[in-house]
């Protein structure tokens, strides 16, 4: 398990990296180190939260999604659009046109995450009621949160909502349906996601707990935005197309609204967003201090998926637009009976997730204790400035790196300076003595 290779949508371009350590300081899982003046991401620790992308002033950390040309490999091309996409446009652009523009990119069918929001809420309530012994149930939609729990809060793995995310549920449903309806083979159908964050790209390429083949690729909203905008300009002058939309389902992009929807007479829901808040809340759940909640919506980005790093609009503006669309929109009659049948047949279940222990110093407790003692000893000699000049995020992290053989005490520049000064003083003293 330790040697497993992890896919990540966040990459470092070494030529651009100056070794400034800005990324090291903001990493939520202490996954980045600067060694030999270049930043390196530990793939076992990275949760694709995107903090480092924002912190880097040198365009050295780049999120990646798949190239759009990938769709040409398939006979029938399907796009599933994340809810946050519809908050990215000025208000003169209609929901229908924004959706129509996706077809223009070359897709045969465009579906929305928003279509199954209502169904998701029903499944969540049903799941929460069936798993009262495990409360609070923790939302599983945000791939960063799921990986964070695997890494830092393994005791909370049983509390995760073990049902696929809405875009994966749609994928499962559509792949079968299209095969039957269009008489196509499974590998002739390409299903792609249009996503708000690098974590969703990672989840497409390396899904956690998935039983079946899901998506064939993921495209960043920011990557298609330029092309989409050109199409929109042209489409705006044409008559409004007859396209189905799901305004009431757009709530999925907003963590707070989503919690409000799950909340009911016998279910108390809490909404948390922003990765630092998520970490704090998970720690309190671990202490059994939030047991009064039945369900907790956890999203790594500000305000939920509208805060994802692939969005082009500010999370608060996008949230306000989406709220307006929800308010003004009408319910879209949708037949969910087929989805319900699949749910009852267990088709959307996710395999129990295994921990990815990154914190333990050693598998064997005796060795771990020895290392902990060494760590504490090293810590007393370090200056405690947490200056990051060594390339580790804190003095504690450096001590840990030294114990694990990933750094040496000489990496500490402050100690190096002190020793050099002492050596110079010693030299001067010796010289003065010899003169006498």
């Amino acid at each position: 398990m330790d040697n497993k290779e992890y896919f990540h949508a966040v990459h470092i371009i070494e030529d651009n990296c100056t070794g400034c350590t800005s990324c090291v300081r903001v990493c939520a899982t202490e996954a980045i180190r600067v060694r030999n003046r270049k930043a390196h991401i530990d793939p076992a620790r990275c949760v694709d939260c995107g903090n480092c992308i924002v912190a880097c002033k040198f365009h050295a950390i780049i999120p990646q999604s798949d190239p759009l040309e990938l769709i040409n490999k398939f006979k029938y091309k399907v796009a599933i659009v994340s809810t946050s996409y519809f908050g990215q446009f000025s208000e003169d652009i209609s929901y229908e046109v924004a959706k129509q523009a996706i077809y223009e990119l070359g897709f045969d069918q465009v579906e929305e995450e928003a279509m199954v929001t209502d169904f998701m809420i029903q499944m969540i309530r049903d799941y929460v009621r069936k798993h009262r012994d495990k409360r609070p149930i923790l939302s599983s939609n945000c791939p960063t949160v799921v990986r964070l729990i695997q890494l830092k809060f393994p005791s909370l793995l049983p509390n995760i909502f073990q049902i696929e995310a809405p875009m994966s549920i749609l994928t499962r449903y559509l792949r079968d349906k299209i095969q039957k309806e269009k008489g196509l083979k499974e590998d002739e159908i390409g299903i792609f996601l249009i996503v708000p964050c690098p974590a969703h790209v990672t989840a497409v390429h390396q899904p956690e707990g998935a039983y079946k083949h899901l998506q064939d690729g993921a495209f960043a909203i920011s990557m298609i935005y330029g092309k989409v905008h050109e199409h929109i300009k042209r489409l705006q002058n044409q008559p409004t197309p007859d396209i189905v939309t799901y305004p009431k389902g757009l709530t999925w992009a907003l963590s707070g609204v989503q919690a409000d929807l799950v909340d009911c007479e016998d279910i108390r829901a809490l909404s948390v967003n922003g990765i630092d808040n998520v970490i704090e809340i998970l720690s309190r759940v671990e202490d059994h201090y939030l047991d009064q909640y039945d369900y907790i919506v956890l999203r790594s980005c500000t305000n939920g998926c509208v805060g994802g790093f692939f969005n082009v609009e500010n999370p608060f503006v996008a949230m306000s637009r989406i709220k307006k669309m929800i308010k003004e929109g009408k319910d879209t009659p949708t037949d969910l009976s087929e989805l319900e049948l699949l749910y009852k047949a267990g088709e959307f279940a996710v395999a129990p997730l295994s921990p990815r222990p990154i914190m333990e110093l050693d598998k064997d407790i005796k060795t771990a204790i020895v290392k902990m003692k060494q760590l504490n000893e090293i810590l007393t000699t370090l200056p405690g400035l947490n200056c990051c000049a060594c390339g580790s995020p804190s003095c504690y992290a450096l001590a840990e790196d030294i114990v694990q053989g990933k750094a040496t005490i000489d990496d500490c520049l402050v100690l190096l300076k002190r020793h050099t000064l002492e050596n110079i003083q010693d030299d001067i003293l010796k010289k003065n003595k010899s003169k006498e």
Partner: protein
Amino acid sequence: MLDYAVAESEMAEYWYIRPGYEKAVQKHFENQQEPEVSLESLIREKDFNEAGKGSAEVKNVLKRLGIDPAILRRIAVASYEAEINVAAHSLGGAMLSHIYQDRIHMIFMDNGPGIADIEQAMMPGFSTADEMVRELGFGAGLGLPNIQKNVDALHIVSEAGDSTMLEFLIFFNDNGQ
């Protein structure tokens, strides 16, 4: 249950040992072994901003030692509860955590004012604690009974008008083996 109270003139004492752990607990207190790792943290009176940090620190160390997640959660609850108790109900104090290869021994000492009747303090709604606590929104909340539920041994010594010492043991393996 092996819990019993020793009533003395001014001093109250309370013992609880989880059935099956008698030998392991006795061995711990008789041997006076040196702990492998020790942590110390001050608990200030009514400082609800800081209260909980000592327990968080212990939790971080235990995660680095690779303690089983289910055991870790029991330690987290008992330790957080005890720390908040000192902050909320006493004049302040300190917590000491001694980690051994197979167990943790945590000691909470405060500067008074002492618990007059420990038996009574152990009482409130022990059997109904779970639901009540949850409705109140305190999570663990109900203090001593909740600590007892999560530990393998609990020992409280208190003098009315003076200090209270609470200590507990949690073993990393079943039955302290």
